[in-house]
């Protein structure tokens, strides 16, 4: 609301994801590949293996073309992109960690210089000096990871920084070391996996076999330690955040599953390279790379997902509102905007008055400043699809927007704005996909009624308040569900028909007995 919102039709979140994913694929190779180059050079020179050295020269060219060109530009690219889509978060991170970024820049500059001199120095430098450049490259590349890792993990686990605002508290946060170890392992694994590509086009079968075996020495252990390091990482993530990836949030859970499966497949494929290493084809090496990168992409996606609704945990929401009012926030916290209203608080909107005739238009502006950092109307994380699935009419949308912060394990921040503005947002959302009240109340089987009205906050689980506490007697339970807000003040004021309530209660009872949940007593709600 402080900054204008870039209206990306296909989804601002998708654009960030694309740039970031492409960058991490290359940046981890840039770190691990640096060590691979210099260690392999040392090995080849000690064994006087000119064939291996010849391949390594070609590989170093490939390395520079991928990492220095694409890696460097895409790294700047993430910075450009987050500045365009999350300027408040970017500004916060730059203010909080300015000297961290500046230190990283020093390492980055040395890293790039060393990479170029290493590449150009193959024929010009004596072996010792050449390897000195290789080590300098790797050390600086690794140090840049050491720095950037502090800032990335801070976004997920800001810890006590939120209270004391001390640089090193934020930097060496709860997930710093597991993340550094995890990313180091990824970097080493990718060093071996990328090397398979240049190895696969090598014509000398004996040389190819040597390189493939050597690459597997990097890829296999790197992949093998990831589960243990991942477990350590997960243990350091607050339990309530990690719950998203364990079933509370559909997308995070799905990608967590992909990450595990793809990591396993990557491991198997990496081992398969050893079966006939001298005959490995380019297509197979690309397959290994694609699977490994997909596993890594899934991991990054889970990390980003469990961080939601925050972009900086316990500090700034993904929609650039501060989670609590802080001095100098300009009134851009959820509570302040709710009190003053979006139309008063937001700088970059045109409509300052809400009337009966401009509801949807105002709602569109509210959508842009509050929702568009993650959602679109009908593309990436499109709400049209969501509304069709749930069959919510305008009244239901309005009621549900009042409880956004409870949906899917709290993946979204609370709606910030007045009740009238919430109504305007509902009017806009309903204009994307008009659903009549009649259609909205057409669902007649309990499962569908649950999916459409309850599943965004409640889960079919013994510990869920609905399954735990709802009394089993259908008539009494149906009666209790008549007025949800009196049941729990933060529930939306949904109005189901008598028949729908009965169907829902019966379905809940069926689930409880089928899954062996302890049934609530008459004393429950």
């Amino acid at each position, binding site marked *: 609301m402080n900054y204008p919102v870039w209206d990306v039709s296909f989804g601002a979140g998708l654009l960030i994801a694309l740039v970031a994913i492409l960058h991490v694929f290359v940046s981890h190779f840039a770190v691990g590949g640096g060590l691979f180059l210099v260690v392999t050079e040392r090995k080849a020179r000690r064994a006087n293996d000119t064939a291996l050295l010849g391949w390594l020269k070609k590989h170093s060219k490939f390395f520079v073309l991928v990492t220095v060109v694409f890696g460097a*530009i895409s790294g700047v690219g993430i910075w450009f992109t987050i500045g365009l889509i999350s300027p408040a978060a970017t500004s916060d991170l*730059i203010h909080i960690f300015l000297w961290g970024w*500046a230190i990283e*820049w020093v390492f980055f500059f040395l890293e790039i210089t060393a990479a170029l001199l290493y590449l150009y120095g193959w024929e010009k430098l004596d072996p010792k000096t050449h390897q000195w450049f290789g080590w*300098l490259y790797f050390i600086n590349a690794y140090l840049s990871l050491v720095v950037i890792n502090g800032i990335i993990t801070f976004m997920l686990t800001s810890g006590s920084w939120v209270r004391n605002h001390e640089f*090193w508290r934020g930097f060496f946060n709860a997930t710093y070391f597991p993340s550094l170890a995890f990313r180091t392992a990824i970097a080493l694994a990718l060093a071996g996996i990328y090397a398979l590509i240049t190895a696969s086009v090598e014509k000398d079968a004996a040389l190819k076999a040597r390189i493939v075996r050597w690459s597997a020495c990097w890829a296999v252990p790197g992949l093998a330690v990831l589960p243990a390091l991942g477990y350590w990482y997960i243990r350091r993530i607050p339990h309530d955040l990690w719950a998203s990836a364990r079933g509370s949030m559909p997308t995070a859970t799905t990608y967590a599953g992909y990450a595990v499966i793809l990591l396993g497949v990557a491991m198997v494929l990496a081992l398969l390279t050893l079966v006939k290493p001298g005959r490995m084809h380019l297509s197979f090496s690309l397959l290994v790379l694609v699977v490994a990168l997909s596993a890594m992409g899934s991991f990054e996606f889970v990390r980003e997902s469990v961080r939601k609704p925050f972009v900086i945990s316990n500090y700034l929401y993904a929609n650039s509102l501060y989670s609590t009012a802080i001095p100098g926030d300009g009134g851009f916290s959820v509570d302040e905007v709710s009190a003053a209203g979006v139309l008063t608080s937001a700088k970059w909107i045109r409509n300052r008055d809400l009337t009966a005739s401009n509801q949807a238009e105002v709602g569109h502006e509210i959508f842009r400043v509050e929702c568009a950092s993650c959602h679109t109307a009908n593309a990436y994380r499109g709400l049209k699809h969501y509304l069709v699935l749930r069959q919510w009419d305008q009244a239901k949308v309005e009621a549900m927007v009042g409880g956004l912060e409870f949906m899917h394990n709290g993946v979204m921040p609370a709606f910030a704005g007045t009740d009238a503005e919430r109504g305007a947002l509902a009017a806009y959302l309903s204009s994307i996909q008009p659903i009549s009240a009649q259609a909205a109340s057409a669902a007649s089987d309990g499962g569908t009624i649950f999916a459409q009205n309850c599943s965004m906050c409640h889960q079919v689980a013994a510990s869920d308040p609905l399954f735990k506490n709802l009394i089993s007697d259908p008539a009494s339970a149906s009666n209790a569900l008549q007025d949800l807000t009196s049941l729990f003040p933060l529930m939306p004021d949904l109005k189901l028909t008598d028949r729908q309530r009965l169907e829902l209660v019966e379905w809940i009872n069926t689930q409880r007995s089928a899954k062996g949940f302890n049934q609530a007593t008459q004393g429950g709600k």
Partner: protein
Amino acid sequence: MLQSNLIPVLDPNPLPAPYWLLKLLLIVTFTLHIVAMNFMLGGAVLALTAKWSAKHREHGKRVFFDVAKKLPSLLPATITLGIAPLLFLQVLYGQFFYTSSIIMAWPWFLVLVLLTVAYYGFYFVSFRSGRDSRKVACVMLVSTLLVVLVGFVFSNNITLSQTPARWAAKYFAHPSGWNLNLTEPTLIPRFLHFFVAAVAVGGLLLVFMALAAWKRDNAYARQLLNFGGKAFLFSTMAQFVVGPLFLFTLPRDLRMMFMGDNPLATTLLLVGIAGGVAALVVMSSALRNGNIRAAAFTVPGLVAVVIASMAVMRDLLRDAYLKPYFHPEQFPVKTQWQVLPLFLALFVGGVALWLVMIWRYGLLGGRSTIAAEASNMEDGGTR
């Protein structure tokens, strides 16, 4: 709607160092960035000019490839040296810079794509060193044009960030980010001012190459000196047209700042003009006498003074543009003493290590026995 209401509020986190230090780092690192950019862009333009205008085809081709081989190093130097000023710009002027970037988000984002393509193009040319095909020249031309376009997008963004009065109309007409700042009267003169300066400094790159080759291949070195020196002379003379054009398109009160109203700004402009004139005189004399030392040491010394004064003038101009909206005295400051000294130590250590690196490589007349060849590509093979 009052424009000042649209200016985003300051970041709630205080500046992590005194304002003056951040400003100093901004100006110093920007100057380094602009020098690298000038070598890269000016070098690329002159390489193409040499190829297409040289009387002796072989000479033009040799200059073309000798410069082309340096571009894959000069472009990342430009990018990496650009990161630091962009960082300090964002911490001081984020309110203006983020906003203008968002208003012209797509052109700004596409800078990344343009740079990537240009970069691979430069590598393509350098890897085909000595192969005199039309394709190589075309790739070089495309890459150079893309880099010029990147510069033009930067000029758009910087001018837009300084003119908040234009923001609302542009943003609300196209919130999708398809905007530029083409109606800004200073845009083209400003862009040309930078472009022409880049060609002049690109001329100095050729002069440095002449210096490196002076003993090894004197005839070729003299050609480089002559070509680079003339490029410097012509473009610096052109600057005496473009510069005043830029000055006179500025709003009157800002223009007058450099013409008496602000003593510092006026002095810097006079220093800049005097330095430019002196550089012209020294270079033309050096070319007449074949004096490589004057061309490669005195002229760059004078140009360094000009660039430094221009960098400070540019900053004064930005603050004058933003005077109604930008109040640095309102910045909360909380110096991060627990980390600032570490940065300063690493920065100094980093510069020292960098110098050791290029010395060990053989640049700076270091230990490599083939120092003059040092910046060439490993598979160049033209000599």
